[in-house]
């Protein structure tokens, strides 16, 4: 891996991020509904609405609005929420840690369960464990997260009373949302680990290791796993990014105070600056995580060289 490659990848991020910011800026502004009218309330007259519009800077030319948005962005200023009047960065920072905790717990759970299941299913191909676990994985892929969340809530909170259903007060509140959010990724990781394992154990060097008289355990854990896990690391990385943005539905089901819920609330109340801020944050994080995954990939697999 060369430093030049990293620099080139970072440079490519600039047009993509500019594209993202332009798309978000344009999209958010063609959303029907005038935030100045909404903010002014139903009894405001035209003058009051105009005044609010001027305060928000919405009376200026869109191009000027975009450049002033970009300029502020570089200074870490994302504007103020039209709904609460608080700075967007503050709104986001109040919610973002919750989403990070939820997404990280979900991905750790998904990686542990997914990788372990995938290894066993791959090593014992066509066994009952293989068939059943892959069937469950397919169930995990096909289940709507919001339904899974509701069903878990129905069973563990309402019927059994073991876990709290909504909110984020203690670690107990984290369990059901994390399982719900991680279910899909668990399935993807398990399937990937299995197929990667199957591919690797057919290679010559594994046959050599077996021929040397190494124990099966040694062959699997010391030889096969190292190479089999390379693509799995990529998938885990990509899933982490997806979970950050994909937490919307889970957060709504469990009333989890994260940025996904913030985004839906902002969309419903036409809070432009908050929508922009959340989407920009998620998109930048996603790009960054993908870059790290790519670099990690070439570090783990010396056969891959980027030039």
């Amino acid at each position: 891996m060369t430093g030049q490659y990293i620099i080139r990848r970072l440079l490519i991020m600039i047009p993509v991020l500019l594209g993202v910011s332009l798309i978000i800026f344009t999209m958010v502004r063609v959303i029907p509904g005038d935030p100045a009218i909404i903010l002014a309330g139903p009894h405001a007259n035209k003058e009051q609405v105009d005044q609010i519009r001027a305060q928000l800077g919405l009376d200026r030319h869109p191009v000027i609005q975009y450049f002033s948005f970009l300029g502020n962005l570089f200074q870490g200023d994302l504007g103020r929420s039209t709904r609460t009047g608080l700075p967007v960065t503050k709104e986001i920072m109040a919610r973002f840690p919750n989403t990070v905790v939820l997404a990280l717990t979900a991905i750790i759970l998904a990686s542990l369960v997914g990788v372990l299941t995938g290894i066993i299913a791959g090593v014992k191909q066509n066994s009952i464990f293989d068939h059943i676990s892959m069937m469950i994985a397919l169930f995990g892929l096909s289940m709507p997260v919001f339904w899974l969340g509701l069903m878990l809530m129905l069973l563990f909170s309402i019927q059994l009373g073991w876990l709290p259903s909504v909110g984020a007060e203690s670690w107990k509140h984290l369990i059901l949302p994390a399982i719900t959010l991680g279910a899909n990724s668990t399935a993807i990781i398990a399937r990937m680990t299995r197929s990667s394992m199957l591919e690797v154990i057919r290679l010559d060097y594994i046959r050599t290791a077996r021929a040397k008289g190494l124990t099966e355990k040694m062959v699997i854990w010391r030889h096969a796993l190292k190479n089999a896990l390379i693509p799995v690391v990529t998938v885990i990385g990509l899933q982490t990014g997806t979970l950050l943005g994909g937490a919307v539905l889970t957060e709504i089901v469990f009333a989890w105070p994260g940025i996904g819920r913030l985004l839906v609330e902002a969309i419903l109340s036409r809070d432009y600056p908050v929508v922009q801020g959340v989407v920009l944050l998620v998109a930048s994080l996603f790009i960054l995580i993908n870059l790290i995954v790519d670099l990690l990939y070439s570090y783990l697999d010396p056969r891959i060289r980027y030039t």
Partner: protein
Amino acid sequence: MEAIATEAENKQYSQFKEVFRRLVKRKTALIGLVLVGFFLLAGLLAPVLAPNDPLEHSLQHMLAKPSAEYPLGRDELGRCILSRIMYGARISLLIGLMVVSIGILIGVPLGVTSAYYGGKTDFIIQRFIDTMLTFPGILLALILIAMLGVGLQNVMIAVGISTIPIYARLSRSSVLAIKNRQYIEAAKSIGASDSRIILQHLVPNSLSPIIVQSTLHMATAILWAAGLGFLGLGVSPPTPEWGAMLNGGRLYIRVAYHVATFPGMMIFVTVLGFNLLGDGLRDALDPRLKL
């Protein structure tokens, strides 16, 4: 000339038969086929099979438990849940088909052009695709729906647009894999035009991954559309849509579990069916995995 044409037709037919034979040989694919068939029947025959009017409400019987007349019970407005699920299948089917069509009609030309011409065209199209791919999962559909407003048509457009990058990437990579083959060079050397090469050679030969992807995408489309419906950003009421039905029943989960459970189960079974069928098709179309 005619004989050659018939021969080609026969070949195509036997190829189709061969793929179908390989498909039904796999138990899981067969289950997928049955589940998808079940979904299609429920949707297409809803007016005949549905026991009640999906829109007829009765507040007196709200949240009523399953009974002989109302096999899956009644929802928060006293409407027949089974009938609404059956009519909802039509909505999901329509959404799935439209989403996949939008994805293919825009995504495939983008990918093929990108791969075939390379250079600057490729760079620009790929940055555009990169930009779209920076919105993970349902996020892009969410922003688009916020922009377009709620409603059936907008759900289809929003989810459809968000699937474009996947088709573009897929068709790009399959064209890249075949564009330097000898038969393409041969076509070029006899003076075939770019559009002829693309339409007659590149597109047909990169079709199988697209068929597989489209089947799997029916599943994603149904899931995402239901997700938007669940967030209250989808098809407007009182249209029976699965996600919205689930959202309606969510508030009553403590007193009437059936209202949210059955529509969710239907989404699950349908999506599972398309996933199984897609997996099966992939194996059937990939000769390397010949059974």
